[in-house]
């Protein structure tokens, strides 16, 4: 009886152990996890800034911020976002999508920096939509990047099918977008 229990326990233990060491027994050298730390960090920071901009706008809408404070912090956040986009472009320069996003950012930055003028809301949408456009750029060069994986999720909607452009400003449209990310114009069916 004792031997049978020992045998069962041994079989179970060996099965568990084999399962654990199995990945180590696969032939060939172990692949090293290549992750663009700098890129992931930049993407994370950009994501945070995007959320901060949304929160700021929400606070402004419900009356928690004065006009002056809103303009001050909104511009500050936008400058940070543009700076981050530029850094992302430097780290992962390949891909036309990012160029397009950056152009949109530069355009808006010019608008934002015009003295005494409030930023225009549709421009915010362009900023918010930027990671979706920027995705192909970061997905290509990095093979095993969780940060990039997160961003490539939106990218698949970009590929395949006919490419659409906004009838108002000519901005390239994502297939799932019902509004232009640049000017806010409803997308033509």
């Amino acid at each position, binding site marked *: 009886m004792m031997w049978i229990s020992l045998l069962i326990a041994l079989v179970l233990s060996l099965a568990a152990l084999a399962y654990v060491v199995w990945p180590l027994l*696969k032939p060939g050298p172990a692949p090293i996890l290549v992750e663009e730390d700098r890129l992931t960090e930049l993407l994370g920071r950009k994501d945070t800034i995007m959320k901060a901009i949304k929160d*700021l706008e929400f606070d402004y809408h419900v009356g928690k911020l004065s006009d002056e404070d809103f303009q001050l912090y909104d511009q500050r956040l936008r400058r940070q976002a543009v700076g981050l986009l530029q850094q992302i472009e430097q780290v992962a320069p390949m891909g036309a999508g990012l160029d397009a996003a950056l152009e949109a950012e530069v355009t808006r930055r010019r608008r934002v920096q015009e003295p005494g003028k409030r930023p225009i809301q549709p421009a915010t949408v362009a900023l918010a939509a930027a990671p979706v456009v920027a995705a192909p750029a970061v997905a290509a060069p990095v093979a095993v990047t969780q940060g990039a994986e997160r961003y490539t999720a939106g990218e698949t909607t970009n590929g395949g099918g006919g490419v659409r452009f906004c009838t108002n400003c000519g901005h390239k449209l994502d297939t799932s977008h019902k509004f232009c990310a640049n000017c806010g114009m409803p997308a033509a069916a």
Partner: protein
Amino acid sequence: MIFDIGYLILISALVIAAFGVAAGFWGGHKRNTKLAASSFNAVYAVAGLVLLAAALLWYGLLGDHFELSYVWNHSERALPTFYKFSALWGGQAGSLLFWCLLLSGYSAIVAFANRTRLQVLMPYVNGVLLATSLFFLTLLVFAANPFERVGFVPPDGQGLNPLLQNYWMVIHPVMLYLGYVGMVVPFAFAVGALMSKRLDNEWVRTVRRWTLIPWMFLSIGIIMGSQWAYMELGWGGYWAWDPVENASFLPWLTGTAFLHSIIIQEQRGVLKVWNVVLIWMTYFLVILGTFTTRSGVLESVHSFARSDVGPYFLVFLTIILFGFLWLLSSRFPLLRGDQQIDSYTSREAAFLANNWLFAGIAFATLWGTFFPMFSEILTGDRISVAAPFFNKVNGPLFLLLLLLMGVGPLLGWRHTSAAAFRKQFTWPLITAAVVAVLVFVLARSLYPIIGLAICAFATATIVQEYVRGVQARRTTSDDNVLSAMGHLWSRNGRRYGGYLVHLGIVLIGVAVIGNEFYQQTTNVTLAPNQTVQIGGYTLEFDRLESDRQSNLTEYGARVIVYDRNDNVVGTVIPKRNVYDKAPDMPTSEVGLRMSPIEDVYVVLNGWEAGGATVTFTIYINPLTAWMWVGGLLLALGTLIAAWPHSTRRAAATLPSAAYATGDD
């Protein structure tokens, strides 16, 4: 013998956990994907083996295998099946196995959910989770073997502790354990972030949900524990600040502070050091709490020397303390804040103050809990601090926290101007003033006036936030009020679920204030048909009755409750249960008539001559029901806050509405 398999399985799990720790840390350091994959498999294998061991112990309990020491000591043939099942966590070895079971379950879920994400962090996360499992497996294998034999086969067991034979005590420890054990997960992510030097917001975002869920379980566990104390212990209250209660409350305090402060890190990139320290403190307090409630260290400083598990805990706590300090100091330069806090009239400043208050309450509670031990070490005399100390120190701090709970949401990030200040604060302040006047008219007592006015202020803040959120949503859509509210929950559950949690806490605060300042009590001995008056009620003792259950005899005193107009409002039956295996440990079950205004709470103390006279303690507890309603709201709010929702899809379809409701 089948139970030998259980012990051998625990040994295998221990070996595999040790291997998994090494594979996780080394694989993470070398970024070696084979070792990383092996650490994942180790997590799953340990979970499977521990589940098997727990199943074997359950088999022993349900099958009355009294040859096992644990079953003999914590069960009996006549014990209802329900309690045989829960006896797994009724004793030392079983509850350690249960701890390990929940931890390995959590670990497996975390590993599976992140199997393709956070690839740099995850091997370390697996390593930390397995290291904690390894510690508990070490206890099970070397110090508290649940499969230990008696050496003969006793005819019957000694029975489960009568206090644990209660349905609250079946579910309450499970909730508490789920909360306690779950707090290991955010700590594992924090260590993973520190070790991998990946200290951006990625781990903070991931960890938020993994903190909310255990926090919810811990909160429910604490509230259920209070409810058990209130309904079963029969001393008229729900919280006594005893060491075991404090052991669960301490990680709740630091965990709550952490949940708030990670929001500032996410928003502003500040408090990075403080956040990792907070989650480490939470983890440390979880292990410390498990240690103190098991080793008897708080009953006497000498008892842990006699305890088998005490030294193991001390070694582990030392490793956690110094290991973390080393890690923190080596990563300190990487934890610089990205920005500064701009203004004192900003939400982040309110969050910071909230953190100080939580830290202050945690420190006072820790000090009060361990004071008897310190005093015995230093002076030789054991001096205990009781509930009045905790109430005096923590009461005002909690009141300030409630105030901040009202103030914080009204402030904007970064800075709130005077005009915005006026716009935000007007209605909550008017509400608070009206309630203060009302309470002053009804009952002129300073502290409840301040307390209830602050509760009203916080409630008005929450209502105002909802109203403005719904209005903002309705300006950009055709939604009616209800669907606009649903939208707020589904798209910004974090903020609006959080407000529900706040409302739950406010209700708990109202119940505490009601009980603390307006409770009435009396002791009385009555013969059948005699009455007593208290707080506008008349209570008439009808008769004493008894009922035989499988392993106990239940004695109940039927008491009829009349209101001011002599209308019967209900019948309550306070009980005493006398257990066959522990006749000198009768348990109490209070007779309770609950209402939103006040509870009539009757305790059966004893009787003479078969019920010719019966002694009762009667309490009138105002507003207590709101504590349980508050608990439910808290759980609901946390679920809304933690509920995953797709932001990308919605952002793509209707971007213009996204910022109008502050979607995240």
